[in-house]
């Protein structure tokens, strides 16, 4: 027998549409923040555990040994997070940036979307367009949407990501770094006569509002002519985006 429950289906569909409207009028923001805040401690731990745990654990080992491995991994995660945050604090203090450090809560991955949800929000000074970095000032993406308790970050590898960049080779060659299918990044619009070599480092150019000059983006791995005027440099990321757990949002001093 076909059980459709049209009344319930219509009611829930109407409730959903109402919820969508309420979200865009920022009426549900409090509850959304509450959910993220409540889940944040467990998510941070599970995310770090998933990112750092070696999947090649020997299954032949006994339970006691496995528990020791898990305990060891938990300690490694704590130490790695501490080291990473310490590096960030040192870098940002030295460069006199304002910053807000935070942890990754989850990833949003699809063929055309590559993003992170981090526990840095409006309350910490985050806003749309601000750059997000790791460890030694390596850019990983920019804030795309922000709420009081959390932010959504579009990674450099996302097909919609665009960053004004320059090659750190003394010639100040300009270009735009874009994501490619969520897999790689490439620097486009490099003039054909520009002296660019494999191994050169691409950094942010400082031409974008809110993005400071000199944040490391990646190393040139391959150069290809894309038209009669421009060439494209394929970049190798200097961090493993899948393993990120602690990040920092760089906030302009005038904010």
């Amino acid at each position, binding site marked *: 027998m076909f059980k459709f429950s049209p009344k319930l*289906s219509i009611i829930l569909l109407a409730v959903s549409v109402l919820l*969508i409207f309420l979200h865009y009028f920022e009426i549900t923001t409090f509850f959304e923040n509450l*959910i993220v805040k409540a*889940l944040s401690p467990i998510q941070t731990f599970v995310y770090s*555990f998933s990112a750092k745990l070696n999947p090649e654990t020997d299954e032949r080992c006994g339970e006691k040994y496995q528990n020791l491995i898990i305990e060891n991994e938990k300690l490694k995660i704590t130490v790695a997070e501490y080291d990473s945050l310490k590096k960030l604090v040192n870098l940002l203090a030295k460069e006199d940036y304002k910053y807000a450090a935070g942890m990754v809560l989850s*990833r949003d991955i699809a063929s055309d979307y590559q993003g992170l949800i981090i526990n840095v929000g409006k309350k910490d000074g985050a806003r749309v367009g601000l750059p997000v970095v790791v460890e030694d000032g390596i850019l990983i993406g920019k804030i795309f949407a922000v709420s009081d308790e959390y932010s959504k970050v579009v990674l450099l590898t996302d097909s919609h990501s665009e960053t004004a960049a320059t090659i750190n080779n003394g010639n100040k060659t300009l270009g735009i770094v874009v994501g490619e299918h969520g897999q790689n990044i490439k620097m486009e619009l490099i003039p054909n006569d520009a002296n660019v070599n494999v191994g050169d480092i691409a950094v942010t150019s400082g031409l974008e509002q809110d993005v400071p000059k000199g944040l490391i983006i990646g190393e040139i791995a391959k150069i290809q002519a894309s038209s009669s005027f421009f060439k494209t440099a394929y970049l190798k990321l200097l961090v493993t985006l899948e393993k990120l757990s602690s990040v920092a949002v760089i906030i302009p001093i005038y904010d």
Partner: protein
Amino acid sequence: MIKKIFINFILFFSIVILQFSFVKVLPSPVNNLNIILTFLILVTIINYKKALYFAVFFGIVSDIYSLRGFGISLLSYLFLVLAVNFLYNNVFTNRSIISLATLCMLGTLVNVFSINILSQIYFYLKIEFFSPRISIPLFINLFWQIIFNSVFLIFSYLFLKRYIKR
């Protein structure tokens, strides 16, 4: 009653944390597994009304943790439950494992299709700034998602059939 609500509550948040903070971080192609989607298909064939409620709650949380416009996951999960319920009661009536796998495949297709259609609508309504892009990785990810979802659903179904009913 309170015990049941509490169990559902724990189950709901456990799946949310597993999906967004564990599965998504796993290496590709395993990260294509969608536990929420398989759970919704499973609940739909057991208890349709309950699946509708779960679809709303999972949709809200998925939208919070997604870069896509708010409401896309919510509506796509509701469409998924409606489509799976229709197919289960009208097309795949022999209740075999093959039917279940096919149902999962169609459910995944409905979900991906509705997400892309809704993203396009959101883009034209200027709610979303990014238009969905149809590319080869989309189809590769879809292929892996169908495989992993089907395997996960079949194992979950067999597990429930064997242990929960006793």
